[in-house]
């Protein structure tokens, strides 16, 4: 475990950054089914209501979230992997 984790950390963190977008989509479906009042059902209602502005805001919000998540992942990668930090090729 002590030796496996550091080796596995690198791709794990990159995957985390990329998977955030997928998580948002998946959570939307779950929210709709169980009735949780999240951004997912809000977006769905806005589409049925043809409420353009809410749709724009929801999509923008989620993309900002994903970009931020990717940024955090990149920074984490730099923090954990000294090779990336110092730019060793």
């Amino acid at each position, binding site marked *: 475990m002590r030796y496996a984790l550091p080796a596995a950390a690198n791709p794990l963190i990159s995957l985390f950054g990329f998977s955030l977008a*997928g998580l948002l989509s998946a959570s939307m*479906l779950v929210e709709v089914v169980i009735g949780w009042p999240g951004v997912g059902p809000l977006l*769905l209602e806005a*589409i*049925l209501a043809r409420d353009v502005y809410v749709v724009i805001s929801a*999509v923008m919000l989620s993309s900002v979230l994903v970009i931020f998540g990717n940024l955090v992942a990149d920074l984490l990668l730099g923090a954990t992997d000294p090779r990336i930090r110092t730019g060793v090729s």
Partner: protein
Amino acid sequence: MRKSNQLRVAVYALIAVHAVMLLGGFIAPYDYAVQNREYSFVPPTRIHVIDRLGHFHIHPFIYELRYDSPEDIEEGEQVYPLRFLIWGAEYKLAGLLPGRIHLFGVDEPARIFLLGTDQYGRDQLSRLLRGGQISLLAGLMAAAMSIGIGLLFGMVAGYYGRLADEAVMRLAEVFMVLPWLYLLLAVKGFLPLNLGPTRGFLLVTLVIGLVGWARPARLIRGIVLTAKERNYVIAARGFGASDLYIFRRHILPQTMAVVLTQATLLVTTYSLSEMTLSFLGLGVNEPVPSWGNMLASLQQYHVLTSYWWMFAPAFPAILVFWGYYTVANSLQEPTQ
């Protein structure tokens, strides 16, 4: 199960499911939109070989449903043998050949509901087969479109490099960063409302395909970047071969492996996207079934707890997705 066995089973299963879907109109006993209003939420019809008096019949049969009241629908007295290759409602095999012969059925006025009925008394088996056609076809068409666009952009980006590369990659990143479901819903939200069933379906497929071209484009670009530097490509260029020729003859075959893997993965993703859209009410319209909108009725509590046969579309879907994933896995093995 050994890997190769798994792969073989998966391929057979996929072929079987697709064949069944292709022959959907023939296998289904009824039209998918016909409503039998006395038989709302009726459980699957039981096929018997031993009748009430204890006699064994070689020819399997069903009992007619007797309708007393909405809460009380039972098997009646009259025996209806199962008939094969029966004349029934019209359908179009694979969307092209009109036909009227169905694989099995029972004489009028009895009805055979092998997977029960929904709220409107529509035969769930017929809807499952038609829905499978819709969902799988949507997945295949959207994947084809996505791969097509991905190939185009990927090759342009990889081959021409620098400006084209930057432009395409930034555009791809925009599409990759947005959560696919949100993007899908947003695009669907701005489309006109009432198109006919075929145009509606095509539009849904188009939208799904358009949303997801970025990932295959990135991967293809990677392949093209390495392929571009191969000796024979440089040689061909030296000989004055046109770009189109080089694309077709040298680079395209290189990308095939990636394209195939991506295709199998994308078919499942896009099938699932279509099912999700229909589940949320934004996909194909009534009365056209899709595995998604067939499962949507399960959101109601009383359906979820009392009518177990409504879960039926989930199983072929799981089977198909497992099949495609297994194939994708074995395709990926050599490259890893």
